[in-house]
Protein backbone atom coordinates (compact mmCIF):
# COMPACT_ATOMS: atom_id res chain seq x y z
CA UNK A 1 0.00 0.00 0.00
CA UNK A 2 1.05 3.58 -0.49
CA UNK A 3 2.53 5.45 2.47
CA UNK A 4 2.46 9.16 3.37
CA UNK A 5 5.67 9.75 1.36
CA UNK A 6 4.05 8.40 -1.82
CA UNK A 7 1.00 10.61 -1.32
CA UNK A 8 3.15 13.72 -0.71
CA UNK A 9 5.13 13.04 -3.91
CA UNK A 10 1.93 12.38 -5.85
CA UNK A 11 0.18 15.56 -4.70
CA UNK A 12 3.35 17.65 -5.20
CA UNK A 13 3.86 16.45 -8.77
CA UNK A 14 0.17 16.85 -9.62
CA UNK A 15 0.15 20.44 -8.31
CA UNK A 16 3.38 21.26 -10.15
CA UNK A 17 1.93 19.85 -13.40
CA UNK A 18 -1.20 21.89 -12.92
CA UNK A 19 0.88 24.98 -12.22
CA UNK A 20 2.95 24.60 -15.42
CA UNK A 21 -0.17 24.31 -17.59
CA UNK A 22 -2.02 27.17 -15.86
CA UNK A 23 1.11 29.33 -16.08
CA UNK A 24 1.40 28.61 -19.83
CA UNK A 25 -2.28 29.47 -20.35
CA UNK A 26 -2.14 32.70 -18.36
CA UNK A 27 1.09 33.80 -20.07
CA UNK A 28 -0.37 32.85 -23.47
CA UNK A 29 2.52 30.44 -24.03
CA UNK A 30 0.51 27.22 -24.24
CA UNK A 31 0.79 26.88 -28.01
CA UNK A 32 4.39 28.06 -28.08
CA UNK A 33 5.43 25.15 -25.84
CA UNK A 34 2.70 22.84 -27.08
CA UNK A 35 4.68 19.58 -26.86
CA UNK A 36 5.77 20.33 -23.28
CA UNK A 37 2.24 21.25 -22.20
CA UNK A 38 0.69 18.23 -23.91
CA UNK A 39 3.22 16.04 -22.10
CA UNK A 40 2.37 17.65 -18.76
CA UNK A 41 -1.37 17.21 -19.41
CA UNK A 42 -0.76 13.57 -20.34
CA UNK A 43 1.13 13.01 -17.07
CA UNK A 44 -1.74 14.56 -15.13
CA UNK A 45 -4.16 12.30 -17.03
CA UNK A 46 -2.00 9.27 -16.18
CA UNK A 47 -2.21 10.18 -12.48
CA UNK A 48 -6.00 10.52 -12.80
CA UNK A 49 -6.26 7.07 -14.44
CA UNK A 50 -3.85 5.33 -12.07
CA UNK A 51 -5.42 6.57 -8.84
CA UNK A 52 -8.74 4.65 -9.15
CA UNK A 53 -6.82 1.53 -10.27
CA UNK A 54 -4.63 1.84 -7.22
CA UNK A 55 -7.61 2.26 -4.88
CA UNK A 56 -9.53 -0.60 -6.47
CA UNK A 57 -6.84 -3.19 -7.20
CA UNK A 58 -3.82 -2.10 -5.11
CA UNK A 59 -0.21 -1.24 -6.03
CA UNK A 60 0.85 -4.89 -6.39
CA UNK A 61 -1.92 -5.81 -8.85
CA UNK A 62 -1.18 -6.61 -12.47
CA UNK A 63 -3.84 -4.13 -13.61
CA UNK A 64 -2.09 -1.26 -11.85
CA UNK A 65 1.46 -2.31 -12.76
CA UNK A 66 0.85 -2.87 -16.46
CA UNK A 67 -1.17 0.35 -16.81
CA UNK A 68 1.61 2.21 -14.99
CA UNK A 69 4.47 0.83 -17.08
CA UNK A 70 2.78 1.03 -20.49
CA UNK A 71 1.41 4.55 -19.97
CA UNK A 72 4.87 5.50 -18.70
CA UNK A 73 6.42 4.20 -21.94
CA UNK A 74 3.91 6.26 -23.90
CA UNK A 75 4.80 9.34 -21.85
CA UNK A 76 8.49 8.88 -22.64
CA UNK A 77 7.61 9.04 -26.35
CA UNK A 78 5.73 12.28 -25.62
CA UNK A 79 8.92 13.54 -24.00
CA UNK A 80 10.85 12.81 -27.20
CA UNK A 81 8.65 15.43 -28.86
CA UNK A 82 9.58 17.87 -26.09
CA UNK A 83 13.27 17.21 -26.82
CA UNK A 84 12.65 17.75 -30.52
CA UNK A 85 10.97 21.06 -29.67
CA UNK A 86 14.12 22.06 -27.78
CA UNK A 87 16.27 21.03 -30.75
CA UNK A 88 14.12 23.19 -32.99
CA UNK A 89 14.39 26.10 -30.54
CA UNK A 90 18.16 25.58 -30.38
CA UNK A 91 18.66 25.60 -34.14
CA UNK A 92 16.00 28.23 -34.84
CA UNK A 93 18.45 30.82 -36.07
CA UNK A 94 20.15 28.31 -38.35
CA UNK A 95 16.86 27.70 -40.21
CA UNK A 96 17.09 23.94 -40.01
CA UNK A 97 13.54 23.47 -38.68
CA UNK A 98 12.51 21.17 -41.51
CA UNK A 99 15.51 18.88 -40.86
CA UNK A 100 14.61 18.71 -37.17
CA UNK A 101 11.02 17.86 -38.14
CA UNK A 102 12.32 15.16 -40.49
CA UNK A 103 14.53 13.76 -37.73
CA UNK A 104 11.55 13.79 -35.30
CA UNK A 105 9.42 11.86 -37.78
CA UNK A 106 12.23 9.34 -38.32
CA UNK A 107 12.78 8.96 -34.58
CA UNK A 108 9.10 8.38 -33.97
CA UNK A 109 8.90 5.81 -36.77
CA UNK A 110 12.03 4.05 -35.50
CA UNK A 111 10.70 4.00 -31.92
CA UNK A 112 7.30 2.70 -33.03
CA UNK A 113 8.95 0.02 -35.21
CA UNK A 114 11.37 -1.00 -32.46
CA UNK A 115 8.56 -1.19 -29.89
CA UNK A 116 6.38 -3.21 -32.30
CA UNK A 117 9.18 -5.70 -33.01
CA UNK A 118 10.03 -6.06 -29.31
CA UNK A 119 6.38 -6.47 -28.28
CA UNK A 120 5.68 -8.84 -31.18
CA UNK A 121 8.63 -11.03 -30.17
CA UNK A 122 7.58 -11.03 -26.52
CA UNK A 123 3.81 -11.21 -26.94
CA UNK A 124 3.66 -14.60 -25.19
CA UNK A 125 5.47 -13.37 -22.12
CA UNK A 126 4.80 -9.67 -21.58
CA UNK A 127 6.09 -9.98 -18.05
CA UNK A 128 7.03 -7.26 -15.61
CA UNK A 129 10.70 -7.90 -16.47
CA UNK A 130 9.89 -7.09 -20.09
CA UNK A 131 8.16 -3.80 -19.23
CA UNK A 132 11.09 -2.79 -17.05
CA UNK A 133 13.50 -3.52 -19.91
CA UNK A 134 11.35 -1.57 -22.36
CA UNK A 135 11.24 1.38 -19.94
CA UNK A 136 14.99 1.17 -19.41
CA UNK A 137 15.65 1.28 -23.18
CA UNK A 138 13.21 4.13 -23.82
CA UNK A 139 14.67 6.19 -20.97
CA UNK A 140 18.16 5.53 -22.27
CA UNK A 141 17.22 6.80 -25.75
CA UNK A 142 16.02 9.92 -23.91
CA UNK A 143 19.40 10.22 -22.15
CA UNK A 144 21.24 9.99 -25.49
CA UNK A 145 18.97 12.55 -27.18
CA UNK A 146 19.24 14.99 -24.28
CA UNK A 147 22.99 14.50 -24.05
CA UNK A 148 23.37 15.29 -27.75
CA UNK A 149 21.22 18.37 -27.26
CA UNK A 150 23.35 19.43 -24.29
CA UNK A 151 26.47 18.90 -26.43
CA UNK A 152 24.97 21.20 -29.10
CA UNK A 153 24.15 23.81 -26.44
CA UNK A 154 27.74 23.78 -25.20
CA UNK A 155 29.29 23.71 -28.66
CA UNK A 156 27.14 26.55 -30.01
CA UNK A 157 27.58 28.49 -26.74
CA UNK A 158 23.84 28.88 -26.27
CA UNK A 159 23.16 31.63 -23.72
CA UNK A 160 19.39 31.43 -23.17
CA UNK A 161 19.24 30.57 -19.47
CA UNK A 162 15.67 29.27 -19.62
CA UNK A 163 16.42 26.80 -22.42
CA UNK A 164 19.59 25.63 -20.65
CA UNK A 165 17.73 25.04 -17.36
CA UNK A 166 14.83 23.21 -19.07
CA UNK A 167 17.25 20.89 -20.88
CA UNK A 168 19.34 20.21 -17.77
CA UNK A 169 16.23 19.29 -15.78
CA UNK A 170 15.23 16.91 -18.58
CA UNK A 171 18.72 15.40 -18.58
CA UNK A 172 18.60 14.77 -14.83
CA UNK A 173 15.12 13.22 -15.18
CA UNK A 174 16.06 10.86 -18.01
CA UNK A 175 19.43 9.77 -16.64
CA UNK A 176 18.16 9.15 -13.09
CA UNK A 177 15.26 7.05 -14.41
CA UNK A 178 17.41 5.12 -16.91
CA UNK A 179 19.92 4.36 -14.14
CA UNK A 180 17.12 3.30 -11.77
CA UNK A 181 15.56 0.97 -14.36
CA UNK A 182 18.95 -0.52 -15.27
CA UNK A 183 19.85 -1.04 -11.59
CA UNK A 184 16.51 -2.71 -11.10
CA UNK A 185 17.43 -5.19 -13.84
CA UNK A 186 20.85 -5.75 -12.29
CA UNK A 187 19.88 -5.82 -8.60
CA UNK A 188 16.17 -6.68 -8.23
CA UNK A 189 16.63 -6.80 -4.43
CA UNK A 190 17.15 -3.03 -4.29
CA UNK A 191 13.71 -2.32 -5.77
CA UNK A 192 11.57 -2.54 -2.62
CA UNK A 193 13.60 -0.28 -0.33
CA UNK A 194 15.39 2.14 -2.63
CA UNK A 195 14.81 2.04 -6.39
CA UNK A 196 11.03 2.22 -6.21
CA UNK A 197 11.28 5.79 -4.88
CA UNK A 198 13.35 7.16 -7.79
CA UNK A 199 10.72 7.28 -10.62
CA UNK A 200 8.06 9.06 -8.48
CA UNK A 201 10.65 11.48 -7.04
CA UNK A 202 11.91 12.24 -10.55
CA UNK A 203 8.27 12.47 -11.71
CA UNK A 204 7.81 15.28 -9.19
CA UNK A 205 11.23 16.82 -9.89
CA UNK A 206 10.63 17.45 -13.61
CA UNK A 207 7.40 19.50 -13.37
CA UNK A 208 8.79 21.27 -10.27
CA UNK A 209 12.01 22.20 -12.07
CA UNK A 210 10.09 23.37 -15.13
CA UNK A 211 7.64 25.34 -12.98
CA UNK A 212 10.59 26.98 -11.20
CA UNK A 213 12.35 27.77 -14.50
CA UNK A 214 9.28 29.29 -16.14
CA UNK A 215 8.50 31.40 -13.09
CA UNK A 216 11.96 32.48 -11.92
CA UNK A 217 14.12 32.55 -15.05
CA UNK A 218 13.07 35.44 -17.31
CA UNK A 219 12.82 34.62 -21.00
CA UNK A 220 15.54 37.12 -21.86
CA UNK A 221 17.94 35.96 -19.10
CA UNK A 222 21.39 35.00 -20.36
CA UNK A 223 23.81 32.45 -19.00
CA UNK A 224 27.41 31.92 -20.02
CA UNK A 225 27.48 28.21 -20.90
CA UNK A 226 31.26 28.08 -20.44
CA UNK A 227 30.74 28.76 -16.72
CA UNK A 228 28.35 25.83 -16.44
CA UNK A 229 30.44 23.12 -18.08
CA UNK A 230 32.91 21.25 -15.90
CA UNK A 231 36.58 21.50 -16.92
CA UNK A 232 37.98 19.02 -19.37
CA UNK A 233 35.50 19.96 -22.07
CA UNK A 234 36.88 22.17 -24.86
CA UNK A 235 34.55 25.13 -24.19
CA UNK A 236 35.99 25.64 -20.71
CA UNK A 237 39.45 26.25 -22.13
CA UNK A 238 38.25 29.31 -24.06
CA UNK A 239 36.64 30.97 -21.04
Amino acid at each position, binding site marked *: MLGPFDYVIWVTSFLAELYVVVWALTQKQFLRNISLNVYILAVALQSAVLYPLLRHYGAASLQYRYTYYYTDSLLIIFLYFVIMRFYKEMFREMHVGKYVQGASAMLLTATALFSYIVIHQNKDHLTSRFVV*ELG*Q*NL*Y*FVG*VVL*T*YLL*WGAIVKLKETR*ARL*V*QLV*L*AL*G*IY*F*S*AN*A*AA*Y*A*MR*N*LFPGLQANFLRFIPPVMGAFLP*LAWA*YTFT*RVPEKAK*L*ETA*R*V*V*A*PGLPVQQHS
Partner: protein
Amino acid sequence: MIAALICVASLAALLQFFMAHSRAVIAVYRRSELSEQVREVAGIEGQNVSSEQFGRLVQLVRLCPQKSDDQTDLKVVGVYYRMMGVLRSVGRAFSSRISAWAESERSACAYFAAVALDRRIANSRDLLAQQMGEN
Protein backbone atom coordinates in the same frame (compact mmCIF):
# COMPACT_ATOMS: atom_id res chain seq x y z
CA MET B 1 25.48 -6.72 -19.91
CA ILE B 2 23.32 -4.10 -21.68
CA ALA B 3 21.73 -3.14 -18.36
CA ALA B 4 25.19 -2.65 -16.81
CA LEU B 5 26.30 -0.43 -19.70
CA ILE B 6 23.10 1.62 -19.55
CA CYS B 7 23.49 1.94 -15.78
CA VAL B 8 27.09 3.22 -15.98
CA ALA B 9 26.39 5.58 -18.92
CA SER B 10 23.23 6.96 -17.26
CA LEU B 11 24.98 7.54 -13.93
CA ALA B 12 27.81 9.35 -15.72
CA ALA B 13 25.28 11.50 -17.61
CA LEU B 14 23.35 12.15 -14.39
CA LEU B 15 26.53 13.33 -12.69
CA GLN B 16 27.35 15.65 -15.57
CA PHE B 17 23.82 17.08 -15.81
CA PHE B 18 23.67 17.60 -12.05
CA MET B 19 27.07 19.35 -12.01
CA ALA B 20 26.03 21.62 -14.90
CA HIS B 21 22.72 22.38 -13.15
CA SER B 22 24.51 23.28 -9.89
CA ARG B 23 27.10 25.39 -11.72
CA ALA B 24 24.29 27.21 -13.57
CA VAL B 25 22.73 28.12 -10.21
CA ILE B 26 26.09 29.26 -8.81
CA ALA B 27 26.90 31.26 -11.98
CA VAL B 28 23.73 33.34 -11.56
CA TYR B 29 24.69 34.25 -7.96
CA ARG B 30 28.33 34.82 -8.92
CA ARG B 31 27.31 37.97 -10.82
CA SER B 32 26.26 39.70 -7.59
CA GLU B 33 28.72 41.78 -5.59
CA LEU B 34 28.75 41.24 -1.83
CA SER B 35 27.68 44.21 0.28
CA GLU B 36 29.90 45.61 3.02
CA GLN B 37 27.27 44.61 5.56
CA VAL B 38 27.41 40.90 4.72
CA ARG B 39 31.22 41.02 4.64
CA GLU B 40 31.15 42.40 8.17
CA VAL B 41 28.56 39.92 9.44
CA ALA B 42 30.29 36.90 7.93
CA GLY B 43 33.86 38.14 8.45
CA ILE B 44 34.72 38.01 4.74
CA GLU B 45 37.83 39.77 3.48
CA GLY B 46 38.71 40.30 -0.20
CA GLN B 47 36.79 39.02 -3.24
CA ASN B 48 36.88 35.29 -2.50
CA VAL B 49 35.05 33.48 0.25
CA SER B 50 36.83 30.59 1.97
CA SER B 51 35.21 27.22 1.24
CA GLU B 52 35.24 26.38 4.95
CA GLN B 53 32.78 29.20 5.59
CA PHE B 54 30.00 27.52 3.61
CA GLY B 55 28.48 25.73 6.62
CA ARG B 56 28.51 28.85 8.80
CA LEU B 57 27.04 30.99 6.01
CA VAL B 58 24.21 28.50 5.42
CA GLN B 59 23.48 28.54 9.16
CA LEU B 60 23.27 32.35 9.03
CA VAL B 61 21.01 32.14 5.96
CA ARG B 62 18.66 29.86 7.90
CA LEU B 63 18.45 32.41 10.72
CA CYS B 64 16.99 35.00 8.32
CA PRO B 65 13.31 34.97 7.32
CA GLN B 66 12.78 32.67 4.34
CA LYS B 67 12.86 34.02 0.83
CA SER B 68 10.70 31.88 -1.43
CA ASP B 69 13.06 31.73 -4.39
CA ASP B 70 16.31 30.44 -2.90
CA GLN B 71 15.26 27.33 -0.96
CA THR B 72 15.73 24.90 -3.86
CA ASP B 73 18.99 26.57 -4.90
CA LEU B 74 20.35 26.19 -1.35
CA LYS B 75 19.54 22.48 -1.36
CA VAL B 76 21.07 21.89 -4.80
CA VAL B 77 24.26 23.79 -3.95
CA GLY B 78 24.46 22.04 -0.55
CA VAL B 79 24.53 18.65 -2.30
CA TYR B 80 27.08 19.96 -4.83
CA TYR B 81 29.30 21.31 -2.01
CA ARG B 82 29.31 17.91 -0.28
CA MET B 83 30.01 16.18 -3.60
CA MET B 84 32.99 18.46 -4.19
CA GLY B 85 34.18 17.67 -0.64
CA VAL B 86 34.27 13.97 -1.54
CA LEU B 87 36.01 14.74 -4.86
CA ARG B 88 38.60 16.89 -3.08
CA SER B 89 39.40 14.05 -0.65
CA VAL B 90 39.59 11.50 -3.48
CA GLY B 91 41.59 13.95 -5.62
CA ARG B 92 44.25 14.35 -2.90
CA ALA B 93 45.18 10.72 -3.41
CA PHE B 94 45.31 10.85 -7.22
CA SER B 95 45.82 14.34 -8.62
CA SER B 96 46.43 17.72 -7.05
CA ARG B 97 44.71 19.37 -10.07
CA ILE B 98 41.41 17.64 -9.34
CA SER B 99 41.75 18.50 -5.66
CA ALA B 100 42.46 22.18 -6.43
CA TRP B 101 39.51 22.35 -8.84
CA ALA B 102 37.16 20.80 -6.26
CA GLU B 103 38.39 23.32 -3.70
CA SER B 104 37.69 26.25 -6.06
CA GLU B 105 34.19 24.86 -6.62
CA ARG B 106 33.65 24.69 -2.85
CA SER B 107 34.74 28.34 -2.63
CA ALA B 108 32.20 29.21 -5.35
CA CYS B 109 29.54 27.42 -3.24
CA ALA B 110 30.59 29.52 -0.22
CA TYR B 111 30.31 32.70 -2.35
CA PHE B 112 26.83 31.55 -3.39
CA ALA B 113 25.86 31.17 0.29
CA ALA B 114 27.24 34.65 1.04
CA VAL B 115 25.13 36.18 -1.76
CA ALA B 116 22.06 34.26 -0.50
CA LEU B 117 22.72 35.69 2.98
CA ASP B 118 23.11 39.17 1.50
CA ARG B 119 19.77 38.86 -0.31
CA ARG B 120 18.00 37.58 2.79
CA ILE B 121 19.38 40.41 4.92
CA ALA B 122 18.20 42.93 2.30
CA ASN B 123 14.81 41.18 2.20
CA SER B 124 14.52 41.31 6.03
CA ARG B 125 15.41 44.99 6.00
CA ASP B 126 12.68 45.66 3.41
CA LEU B 127 10.14 43.70 5.48
CA LEU B 128 11.06 45.67 8.60
CA ALA B 129 10.81 48.98 6.74
CA GLN B 130 7.43 47.91 5.38
CA GLN B 131 6.15 47.00 8.87
CA MET B 132 7.40 50.25 10.35
CA GLY B 133 5.72 52.14 7.50
CA GLU B 134 2.41 50.39 8.26
CA ASN B 135 2.65 51.31 11.96
